[in-house]
């Protein structure tokens, strides 16, 4: 039989009561806070899991904010380009109108004014803001107006390239305005025609078409020169990048009779017309298209010719060349704008998918964290009531045992 030391027994009884009480308080605390993990030692692995999930959640919430900003910028860009397309269409109609040979100088000046207005409107579209002070066509540095109309035409002041909002996802914050507005392909997109003619000449060269893409041999740095030896006969030569001249197709057959409005003979894979009355010495060039066509410059060139107040006004050939070239350029600009618009639209479409993915991820992370940290309420309550019962029983038995003592039976 082991002796129970009264004082220690009392002390142990009391301390186990206090422990029960503490457990009960903890169980209650878990219910009140709704958390299973309050400190790392409650469940170290769970706490680490929750930390990782929270970090991932914060990252994805950040992605969603970026996505919102990007969506806004792309929406503005998309609708701005849409508006620009309308303006350029109007300019095209104006040009078609200007091609009418019956117009007099004041009619042409009126059309030139209309084109000037359209150019001004396009400039303000190119400088569109996204509502929070950012220029959507500003490229990488979009804190100041990207397009400025200086003495020599509209210049791009931004940093080329598009501004990404994220390194891991395609979330542009701005469109590469330089590429969109100033870098359409010149000519007809494949080659570019030009003329250097006598002031009296009315001959002009069409934009031309590709007849057989497989037959095209003109490469970067080369150009065809069509030279009028007499007003009725021209020769065709290929000028290479080193300046050397080669007859096309060969020395015996590079010279042809000229008939207005007919294609230049001997150009491989392409069909280009020269129209009007030529003068000996007139030269026409055909070189590969390059990405350097500014919508503003294209309009300026037409405006200059149509609205010219020079003492020797442009003749019909000059005007025809300007209008024809203007139409050609505007078609390229339109194509370029359409590409930009559909790119913005495509980006917006992809954002919907990304949005959904990021939202799912955030939900998943919240779930992971909740699984790790949050208390299963049913379990918490049952845990609490178990502990409560145990505490009650302990209190009751403690007080009952304490009541019994032999001293109570000793009477003197």
């Amino acid at each position, binding site marked *: 039989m*082991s*002796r*129970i*030391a*009264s*004082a*220690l027994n*009392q002390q*142990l009884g009391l301390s186990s009561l206090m422990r029960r009480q503490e457990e009960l308080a903890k169980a209650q605390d878990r219910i009140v806070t709704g958390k299973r*993990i*309050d*400190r*790392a*030692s*409650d*469940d*170290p*692995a769970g*706490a*680490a*899991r*929750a*930390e*990782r999930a*929270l*970090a*991932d959640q*914060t*990252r994805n*919430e*950040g*992605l969603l*904010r*970026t996505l919102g*900003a*990007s969506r806004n910028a792309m929406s503005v860009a998309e609708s701005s380009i849409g508006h620009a397309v309308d303006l350029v269409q109007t300019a095209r109609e104006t040009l078609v109108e200007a091609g009418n040979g019956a117009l007099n100088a004041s009619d042409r000046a009126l059309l030139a004014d209309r084109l000037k207005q359209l150019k001004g409107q396009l400039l303000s579209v190119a400088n569109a803001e996204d509502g*929070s*002070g*950012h220029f959507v066509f500003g490229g*990488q*540095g*979009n*804190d100041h107006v990207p397009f400025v109309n200086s003495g020599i035409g509209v210049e791009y002041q*931004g*940093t080329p390239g598009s*501004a*990404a*909002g*994220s*390194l*891991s996802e395609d979330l542009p*914050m701005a469109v590469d305005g330089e590429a969109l507005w100033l870098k359409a392909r010149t000519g007809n997109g494949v080659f570019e025609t030009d003329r250097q003619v006598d002031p009296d000449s009315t001959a002009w060269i069409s934009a031309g078409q590709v007849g057989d893409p497989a037959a095209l041999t003109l490469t970067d740095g080369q150009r065809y020169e069509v030279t009028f030896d007499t007003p009725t006969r021209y020769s065709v030569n290929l000028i290479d990048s080193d300046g050397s001249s080669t007859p096309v197709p060969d020395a015996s057959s590079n010279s042809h009779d000229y008939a207005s409005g007919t294609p230049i003979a001997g150009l491989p894979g392409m069909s280009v017309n020269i129209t009007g009355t030529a003068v000996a010495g007139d030269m026409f060039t055909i070189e590969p298209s390059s990405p350097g066509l500014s919508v503003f410059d294209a309009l300026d060139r037409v405006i200059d010719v149509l609205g010219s107040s020079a003492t020797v006004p442009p003749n019909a050939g000059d005007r025809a060349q300007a209008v024809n070239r203007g139409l050609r350029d505007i078609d390229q600009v339109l194509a370029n704008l359409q590409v930009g618009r559909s790119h913005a639209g495509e980006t917006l479409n992809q954002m919907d998918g990304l949005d959904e993915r990021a939202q799912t991820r955030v939900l998943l992370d919240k779930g992971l*964290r909740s699984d790790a*940290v949050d208390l299963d309420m049913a379990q918490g309550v049952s845990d609490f009531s178990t502990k409560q019962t145990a505490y009650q029983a302990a209190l009751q038995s403690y007080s009952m045992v304490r009541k019994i*003592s*032999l*001293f109570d039976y*000793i009477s003197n």
Partner: protein
Amino acid sequence: MSTNSLMTVGVQAMFAAQTQLSTTSHNIVNAAVEGYSRQTAKLTTVAGRSTGVGYIGGGVGVETIERAANRFLTVRNNQTQAQAAADNTRMGMLTQLEDGYALGEQGLGQAASKLFASFGDIAAAPKDASVRQVALSAAESLASRFRSTGETIDALQTSVSQQLVDEASVVNGLTGQIAKINGQLTGTGNATDQPNDLLDQRDQLIAQLSEHIEVNRVDNRGQDGKSDGSVSLFVGGGQPLVMGTTSHDLKAVPDASAPERSRLVVDLNGSERELTSRSIGGGSMSGLLQFQNEDLVEARAQLGLLATSLADSVNTQHAQGTDLDGAVGQSLLSVGDPKVWASAFNARDSSGESAAKVSINRVAGQGSQLQASDYTLQRDPADSTRYQVTRQSDGTVFRGLADGAQVDGFTFDVSGAPMSAQDRFLLEPVSAAASSTTVAITDPRQLAAAGATASGSGNANALLMQNLAKATSIDGKTFSDAHAHLISDLGVRVQRATSDAESSTSLATLNKTQLVSETGVNLEEEAAHLLQYQQSYQAAAKVLGTAQKLFDTMLSIMG
């Protein structure tokens, strides 16, 4: 048989019963006194005298008053209490340490995530002043969390040092009293009548002492080779705290190699004998030392590593960018400088400083090389012109290092007098960093969001800053991974310490229960004894009454 002897028997019996009643009463009233041992009046039969009809018993006498004691259980009780005190103290300190690490939204990990995310927001609106301000606030909130956790650690170090000083003075008080009692007990070793209450008092003082620091108890022997009644007490490795009637002071002094930490020495008449923390078996001081030398050192190094590696990667990236005014990005986060401590045993120069000097620098851009550890620097034993660095966390040794060499992302420079073979330096590349983390810039315009070549409002660098969330810049881990790792590491540590404390406490309770079931007072038992001895007293009185009546009868016959 004379009436006289009958009377003597009665009186003796009454005296014996009275002694028993006194002893029982003593037990009853001392039942709640800590360390009191139950006492018993040991009765003995008074040998009979031979008469013509045989031996007639001489009644009862009190031989002595005994103390219920169990030497073995007492020693074991002290040991287990010491272990429980050590474990509980360490657990308590670890719990306080854990309080310094908030979880979830309030935590360090989330503060860093928010800083990274805020650079993503800047990327979306590089010139928006309010977004920049938010990022700066996020950086400030991260820095303040580093500071507050770092300060918790520093405060705990201060608290450990202070507690060790306080406990040392308690210990010295106890050892002084024990030495004094030893003086009173010397010479009582073999006496029949033991000074029970004084022995209890000394046992209790030793028990109290054991809760602070575990001691070995040795009974002193006199010239005759027998116990002289006094005891000597030794701590870790055999340093004496009490030698008979002399006590030696225990002192908490700054550690020789790391003055921020404390160590214990025994002052033997002016010469200080060091107690290594491993040699101290138990007691709350042992728990404090273990917490200081293991848990706190590791916590400081781990937090410091998080702060320095993060600051390094953030600052390195920030310097790649351009701020709103076109200037190169400055350091965004600033952390505490690395520290070097010269050992107190180093060769001294005329001004009393270590003659050899060492400084260390963290290498910018090499933050991912840093490790969560302190280092020891000494001369290479194999080559006196070279140096040897030991990484303390795992004992890795780097030998044959030239002055200025790089180890784990930091470099060291030796100057002053040539280092002697005994010189030691404690290097802390990261440990002291976290508690002085600050944000180094104040103007949101100085956040370098743009790339190096872009105009001020570009976002290329902001994107790269945001991407640092995924960079494995902290000992091969991302910040959130390293932080999660630290949290679970600390949690496991606290969990293990808690379970250690629980098991050693229950072992101590078990031992204590065993001990006091032998030595303690059971009030029911004493109540029963009270009745029993009262009856004995009454019976003895009856004997006396009978003797009286016999005497009266005799007188009436004679009368």
